[in-house]
C-alpha cells in the first residue's frame, strides 16, 4: 500500500469545508490594510474534501509500525504500553479548554494536578523540587545545566567545562554546548562503566558538572556511583542525571540518594505519555535544595490553602519555554502514576529488569553481548559476530522489520561497534519476547545462509530500503543551485 501526497491529490475547487460567516457589519481586510502588508499570492495548500482527507491520513497511519501493533524494543526509548485512559484524561474539556492566562482561582484543579505530580516525581527520584516546564528530555538537560551554571555563578565560581561520558546520548553534549560550556569526554572502562581514573583525571575546578545516566546507555548500573559522586562533589562540581533510563529502578533506588543534584525525567518514556512519532514529550527537572532558587519561573506554590503560580523568583534562570510546560502530557503522566501507585511503579521496574535479563539470556549465543550481565532494563548486543558474513546491525534491524517487529536502537551507544540496543519494557509478554528471540535466530541463520537476501530486507513493507545517500546528494545539489527539486518539500511540477 502506498499513498500519494495530499498535494498530489489536490484539485482546484474540490469540495471544501463550510465555515461560519462573520455576521457583523465590518469592512474586508483588503479595504483597510495597506497593500504592501497583504499577501500577493495565496499559499499553495492542497484542496481536498473531508472524505478524502480522512482516507489520506487513515492510509498513512496504516503505513506505520507502532507500539499499538508491534513490539518496539527501541533501546533508550522505553516504548511501553500507552494506557488509553491517559488519553481520555488528557482530553477532558476541564483540561484542554483552559487558557494559560486564566485567573489562578479558575484553574485550581490544574495547579493541583501539577503540584501532586511534582510531589510524586520528587518521591520517585529523591529530590526537593521539580520544574515541569521543559518540553522534552533535551530541554530538561539544558534547563538543569543552566541552573547549575547559575548556582556556580551565584557563588562567583565561573566554571566552564561539563564532563560527559563517551557512552552518553548526543543531547548531553549538545545541551552543554548550548549552555556555553566546553564539553570534555570521560572514557568508559572495560566493564562498560565510567572510568574512575579518567574521571579523576578530567575533574578540575573548571568543571561545573558531570552528566551521567544510570543505568548507563549500556544498560549497566554504575556500581561505583557513590564514589563518582564523592569525587565530583569534592571538586565543587555537580552531578547531573539524565533520566532516560529511570524505568530501571523506580521504587528500588533513587538518583537523589546516589548523589545526583539535578535530574531530568522523560515523561514520554518512564511515565507512558505517548511519543507521537517524535513528540510532544515532557522533560521535568528535579533538583536538590541547593538548586531550588534557580528553578525556572513560575513554580506552583501553596499559599493560604490556594495554589498559586509564583513568578517572583529573583534567582530563577527565567523561562525555558512559554507557559507552564506541556500540560497535556503532565495530565497523562499523573493519571498513570495514580493508576500504578507506588507498588505498581516498583513492580514495573522489577518487571522491566526481569524482561531485559530474560531476553538478553535468550539472545546470548545468537548475538554478541557488549558486556557481562546482569543488565538493568535494557542491554546492548552487537552484530559484530555476523561481520564475517558481511552483515551489519542495520541488516539485523531490517530483518526484524520484515518479521513484523520494530527494530532495536542501532549504532548507539557509540562505544559498541554494530550496537543493537534492546529494551523490552515491562509491558511486553514473555510470549512476545520468545517470538522476538526466534526472529533473531532466523536472522542469524539467514545471515549465514543467504546474506544477500538479508541485505535486501525488508520485503513486504510499503517501501524497501531507501537510498538516504542519494537524498543527501540531491539536497546538496538543490542547496547549491544545481537542481530545482528541494527534496525537503513537495513542489508542483512547473
Amino acid at each position, binding site marked *: 500500500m502506498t*499513498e500519494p*501526497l495530499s498535494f498530489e491529490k489536490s484539485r482546484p475547487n474540490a469540495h471544501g469545508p463550510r*465555515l461560519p460567516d*462573520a455576521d457583523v*457589519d*465590518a469592512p474586508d481586510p483588503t479595504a483597510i*490594510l495597506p497593500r504592501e502588508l497583504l499577501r500577493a499570492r*495565496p499559499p499553495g495548500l492542497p*484542496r481536498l474534501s473531508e472524505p478524502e*482527507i480522512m482516507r489520506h491520513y487513515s492510509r498513512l*497511519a496504516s503505513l*506505520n509500525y*507502532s*507500539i*499499538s501493533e508491534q513490539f*518496539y524494543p527501541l533501546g533508550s526509548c522505553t516504548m511501553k504500553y500507552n494506557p488509553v485512559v491517559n*488519553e481520555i484524561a488528557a482530553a477532558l*474539556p476541564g483540561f*484542554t*479548554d483552559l487558557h494559560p*492566562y486564566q485567573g489562578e482561582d479558575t484553574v*485550581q*484543579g490544574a495547579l493541583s494536578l501539577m503540584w501532586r505530580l511534582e510531589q510524586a516525581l520528587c518521591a520517585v527520584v529523591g529530590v526537593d523540587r521539580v520544574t515541569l516546564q521543559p518540553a522534552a528530555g*533535551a*530541554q530538561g538537560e539544558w534547563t538543569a545545566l*543552566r541552573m547549575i551554571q547559575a548556582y556556580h555563578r551565584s557563588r562567583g565560581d565561573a566554571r566552564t567545562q561539563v564532563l560527559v561520558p563517551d557512552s552518553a546520548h*548526543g543531547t548531553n553534549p549538545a545541551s*552543554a*554546548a*548550548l549552555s*556555553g560550556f566546553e564539553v570534555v569526554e570521560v572514557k568508559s572502562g572495560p566493564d562498560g562503566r565510567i572510568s574512575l581514573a579518567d574521571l579523576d583525571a578530567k575533574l578540575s575546578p573548571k568543571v561545573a558538572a558531570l552528566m551521567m545516566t544510570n543505568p548507563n546507555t549500556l544498560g549497566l548500573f554504575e*556500581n561505583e556511583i557513590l564514589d563518582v559522586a564523592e569525587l565530583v562533589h569534592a571538586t565543587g562540581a555537580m552531578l547531573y542525571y539524565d533520566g532516560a533510563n529511570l524505568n530501571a529502578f523506580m521504587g528500588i533506588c533513587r538518583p537523589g540518594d546516589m548523589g545526583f543534584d539535578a535530574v531530568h525525567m522523560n515523561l514520554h518514556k518512564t511515565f507512558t505519555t505517548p*511519543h*507521537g*512519532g*517524535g*513528540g*510532544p514529550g515532557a522533560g521535568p527537572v528535579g533538583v536538590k535544595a541547593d538548586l531550588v532558587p534557580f528553578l525556572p519561573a513560575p513554580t506552583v506554590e501553596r499559599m493560604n490553602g490556594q495554589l498559586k503560580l509564583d513568578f517572583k523568583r529573583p534567582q530563577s534562570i527565567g*523561562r*525555558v519555554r*512559554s*507557559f507552564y510546560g506541556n*500540560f*497535556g*502530557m503532565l495530565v497523562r503522566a*499523573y493519571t498513570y502514576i*495514580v493508576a500504578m501507585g*507506588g507498588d*505498581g511503579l516498583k513492580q514495573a521496574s*522489577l518487571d522491566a529488569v*526481569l524482561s531485559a535479563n*530474560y531476553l538478553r539470556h535468550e539472545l546470548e549465543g545468537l548475538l554478541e553481548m557488549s558486556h557481562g550481565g*546482569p543488565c538493568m532494563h535494557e542491554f546492548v548486543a552487537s552484530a559484530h559476530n555476523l561481520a564475517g558474513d558481511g552483515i551489519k546491525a542495520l541488516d539485523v534491524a531490517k530483518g526484524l522489520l520484515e518479521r513484523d517487529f520494530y527494530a532495536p536502537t542501532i549504532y548507539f551507544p557509540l562505544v559498541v561497534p554494530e550496537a543493537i540496543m534492546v529494551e523490552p519494557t515491562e509491558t511486553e509478554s*514473555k510470549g512476545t519476547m520468545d517470538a522476538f528471540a526466534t526472529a533473531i535466530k532466523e536472522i542469524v541463520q539467514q545471515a549465514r545462509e543467504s546474506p544477500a537476501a538479508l541485505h535486501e530486507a*525488508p520485503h513486504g513493507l*510499503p517501501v524497501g530500503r531507501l*537510498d538516504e545517500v*542519494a*537524498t543527501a546528494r540531491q539536497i546538496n545539489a538543490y542547496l547549491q543551485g544545481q537542481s530545482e527539486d528541494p527534496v*525537503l518539500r513537495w513542489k508542483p511540477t512547473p
Partner: protein
Amino acid sequence: MAYLVHSPEERAAMLAAIGVASMDDLLIDIPPSLRIPALELPSGLSEFETMAQINALAARNRVFADRLTFRGGGVYRRFIPAAVAAVTSKPEFYTAYTPYQPEASQGTLQSIFEFQTLIAELTALDVANASMYDGATAVAEAAMMAHIHTGRNEVVVVGYLHPEYMEVLRAFSDGRGIKVRKGTEANSKTAAVVFQQPDFLGLLVDAPGLTESAHRAGALAIACVDPISLAILAPPGEYGADIAAGEGQQLGLSPNYGGPHVGFIACRKDLVRRLPGRLVGAAHDAAGRRGFVLTLTAREQHIRRERATSNICTNHSLCALAASVYMTYMGADGMRQVAEVGFKRAHALADRLAAIPGWERAFPERQFLNEFPIRVPKGPAVLRKLARKGILGGLDVHRWFRELKGVLTFTCTEVNDARALDELVEALGS
C-alpha cells in the same frame, strides 16, 4: 498496577531461565545502601477510581465557553475540525517513536514531509523543519541560526514581541553569550532583527521595512508570524525575511493550559544547514518507489553532538500532524475565511468597545487583524465583572509592560459569534 503483563508463574519461569533465584540477584550491581524498601506513594487504583480522581481535578477548573472567550495573547480558541483529533488519536501515529526506521514509519515521515511543505507554502519560504516545541523556542532557535550564520553576537528585538518569547530568547542567548537588545535599528554587530507580525498586542508592524533595514545592516530578518494571519497578510517570503518562526497552536490545537502546542520554523535555502531539529526528505528504494527519510542529520545532536545546531531531539510531531490536518482541511480558502471572520468581528467589536465612555483604542493609528489593545479605566475590575458573567475578557498586558497600564487586548475568532459580541458589550454595560 494496571499496566503490567507477567503472571507470577511467568516471572518465576523467567528467573529460572536466566538461572537466578530472585530479582535481587539481577540487582546486585546496586549498592545495598541505595536500595529503598518501597516508593512512598499511595497504592495503585482501579481505572474507575483513577478516573474519578482525575475527573474531580478537571471539575475544579472553570472552562469558559469558546464563544465567550475574548482572551488571546498567543493562545486562541478557534474552531477545530473533528478531523484533527480523529487523525491524531490514531494509535499508529501517536504510539510510534521518532521515525528512525523509515520502511516501518512512512506514515509519520510522509506526514512530516507534508507539514514541511505546508509551512513552506504558508510562509513563502524555501524549507521548513519538522517542528519545534513552541513559538517561543522557535523564535529563539531562529536567532541562534542567525548567530551561527552571521557569526555576530547581538539580536535586536523590535516592538512588542510576546513577553514570554522574549524571556526564552534571552535564556537561549545567555548560554551562547549573545546579547538581546530591544531597539529599532540593526547595526554591524547585529545577527538578526526579530519582529512579530501582528505583534503581541495584535498590531501590524511594517514588516517589509524592518526586513529591509535589517538587510541593510547585514543582519538577518526573523519574522515571528501568526499562521492564520498569513492567509491574508504578506508572508515573510514575499517581503524577503530570511527566517519565519512562530506558534502553530491556532492550527487545530486546544489551549491545553499552555501546551503542548507546536513551533514552526522556515527559512531561505542558504540557511537550511543551520536549521535545528528533524528534516524529512524524499528518497527512493531499489525498485524506484518513493519514500521519505530523516535527512541532513549531520546537523543534529546524535551525529554532531556538541557541535550540533541545536540539542532538540524529541520535538512536537503529533502537534505538527494536527496542524497538517487542520491546514489540509481548511485549505487556503478556508484559512482566509476564518482570518477574515476574525478580522471583521474584531473591527466591529473594537468600534463598540471604543464607544464605551472612558474606553479608547490604545494605538488608534495602528492597524490590526483580530486582536487589538484598548485602554480602559480599572481593567482588573472589568475582567472580574466579566468572569462573573462567564466571559473571559481581554488580556491585561500591563503585567508585562509598565507603559501599558489599563490596556487590555481583546481577540475575536470564528468562534465568537455575533451574539457573543452583543453579550460581551451588554455585560460591560450592566
